[in-house]
C-alpha cells in the first residue's frame, strides 16, 4: 500500500512539507503575538477593574477582537487576498498564508493573553501599586512575570491552533503538509500519502504540546 512513499521525490516533498508547515506556523504565531499581546494587555488594563479603566477603548478592542474571531478562516483568507498581494507579492504560497494566519490568530492570541493576565492575583498588583510602581513596571514585572506559566501554556495552544489552520490554508494553495494531503489524498486518491501527511501533522502538534508542557513545568516556581 505504501509503494508511493518509496519514491525519493515523494519523501523529499514530505520533508519540505514539514519545513514549510513549521515555517508558516512559527512565523504566523510570532506575528500574531506581536499584534495580540499588546491587545491582550490593553484589554486587561482598560477594563473596568483594570489599572486604567477606559470604557470606550475597551469596548472598541473587545468588539474588534470578537468580529475578527467570528469570521471563518477560509473567508478571512479570501477577504485578505489584496493584503496578501501587497505584503507577499502574491495571493498564494506559504509567505502569503502567513499574512492571513497572523490576522486570524491575533485576536485569538489577544484573548489567551487576556485570560492569562486576569489570573494574576489582584493582591499582588495592589502590593506593587502600594510600593509606588508605575503602570509599565506593573505590566512587565508583575502581570507578565507572574502570568509567565499561563502565557506559555497559552502559546502552546496558539501554536497548535495555527498549525491546524495552516493545514486548512493548504486547501487554497497555502503550501505545507495540508496542501500535500489535499493534493495527493483528495484529488489523486493516494491514500498512503495522505495518511503519512496526517500522521506528520499529529506528530508536530504532539511535539509542540510536549515542548510547551515541559517548558512550563521547568519554569514554574509555584511547585
Amino acid at each position, binding site marked *: 500500500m505504501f509503494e508511493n512513499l518509496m519514491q525519493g521525490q515523494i519523501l523529499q516533498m514530505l520533508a519540505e512539507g514539514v519545513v514549510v508547515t513549521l515555517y508558516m506556523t512559527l512565523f504566523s504565531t510570532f506575528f500574531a503575538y506581536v499584534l495580540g499581546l499588546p491587545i491582550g494587555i490593553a484589554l486587561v488594563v482598560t477594563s473596568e477593574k483594570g489599572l486604567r479603566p477606559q470604557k470606550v477603548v475597551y469596548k472598541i478592542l473587545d468588539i474588534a477582537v470578537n468580529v475578527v474571531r467570528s469570521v471563518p478562516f477560509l473567508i478571512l483568507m479570501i477577504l485578505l487576498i489584496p493584503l496578501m498581494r501587497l505584503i507577499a507579492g502574491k495571493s498564494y504560497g506559504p509567505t502569503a498564508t502567513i499574512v492571513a494566519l497572523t490576522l486570524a490568530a491575533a485576536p485569538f492570541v489577544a484573548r489567551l493573553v487576556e485570560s492569562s493576565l486576569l489570573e494574576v492575583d489582584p*493582591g499582588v498588583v*495592589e*502590593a506593587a501599586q*502600594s*510600593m*509606588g510602581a508605575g503602570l509599565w513596571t506593573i505590566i512587565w514585572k508583575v502581570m507578565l512575570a*507572574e502570568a509567565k506559566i499561563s502565557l506559555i501554556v497559552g502559546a502552546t495552544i496558539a501554536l497548535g491552533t495555527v498549525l491546524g489552520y495552516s493545514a486548512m490554508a493548504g486547501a487554497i494553495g497555502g503550501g505545507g503538509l495540508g496542501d500535500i494531503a489535499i493534493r495527493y489524498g483528495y484529488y489523486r486518491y493516494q491514500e498512503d500519502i495522505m495518511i503519512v501527511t496526517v500522521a506528520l501533522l499529529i506528530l508536530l502538534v504532539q511535539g509542540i504540546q510536549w515542548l510547551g508542557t515541559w517548558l512550563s513545568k521547568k519554569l*514554574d516556581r*509555584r511547585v
Partner: protein
Amino acid sequence: METIIRMQDVSKTFIGRDDQVEALKGVSLEIGRGDICGIIGMSGAGKSTLVRCLNFLEKPTSGTVFIEERDLSSLSPAQLRQVRREVAMIFQHFNLLMQRNVLDNVCFPMEINGVKKADARKRAKELLEVVGLQDKAKSYPSQLSGGQKQRVAIARALANNPKILLCDEATSALDPTTTKAILHLLQKINREFGITIVIITHEMAVVQEICSHVAILNEGELAEYGSVEEVFAHPKSLAAKKLVFRIEPKEALMESRRCVRIVFRENSSFEPVIANMVLACRTPVNILLADTKDIGGVAHGQMILQLPDDEASAARMLHYLRERKLEVEELPSYMGGGEAGESDV
C-alpha cells in the same frame, strides 16, 4: 506629639450598579510619629477602606489625607508614587511575587525605586536577617509557611526605609503563636527603626498586644480614638464597649442587675482579690466575664462581676474592691439591655 498622618473629614462612597455603600463617613484622625495605631471594628466597618485611603490606593470621595503635611489629593501621579515609597504596606494574604525567590521579592521595591542591583541585594540580605529568614533567601514563596511569607513581606516593606507601615489584617491568616511572633516583630521594627505602624484587626487581643493607640470604626464612622489604656479602661461608645467587653450587651448581661466592671492595671493579681472578697463578705458573686493576662506576674485585663441583689453585701463588696485601689465601674447601661447605651454612640 508630632503628627505624621492626618485624615481630614474623609468619606468614601462606592457606587455599584444598583446601590451605593458609604464605606467611610467623614473620618478625621491624627496619628503621631512613632505610634502603633490599631484600627478595629466589625467586618464591613470600613477598616480596609480607611487604610487604603492612607496611601491613596483608594481615593476618598471627599476629604483628604496628609502624610507629613503633604496633601495627597494635591499631588501628581509621580509625586504620589514617591510618597508611596515612604508608606509601605503588608497584607493578610502576603501578596508576594510567586515566580520570584525570597531575595528577589525583597529587592522588588528597590528595583522600583531605582536602587542599584548590587546595593539592593546587599540590603535585602540584611533585611532578611532582621526578620530571621537569612537562610531562605533562595527559596520561593510557595515553599514557605504563612508566618515565613509574612516575614518576607515585612522585609520587603522595609526595603525603601519607609516612615509608615500599614498592615491590613497582617496576622489574620496565621495561627495564634505565629500571630504573636509577627506582632512582636512589628513592635521591634517600631522601636528600632521608629516606623509608625497602622494595624488593622478585628481582634482586641492584637490591639492589647502591641498598640499604643486605637481607633474604633463602626459602620464607616470613627466611634472612638485614643490611647489603648484610655479606651480600654473607659470605653465611651457602644461600639467600643462591645469590643472591650467582647459581648453583645443584649445577650448575656440582659438579665443581670448589679454589674460592675473591674479593670486590673499594674498593682493587683486578680484571683486572690476576688477570692478574698468572697471570703470577707461571705457572699458569692457571679463572674460574667474574665479577660485577664498575666504579664510579668501582674494581672492586666478586666472582669465583669454580678454582685448579689442584697444592697448591703453589694455595697460592702464595692467598698472592698475600691479599698484595694482597683478601678471599679458600675454598668448601668447593661442592666436594662443594650438600648440604654445606644444613645452615646
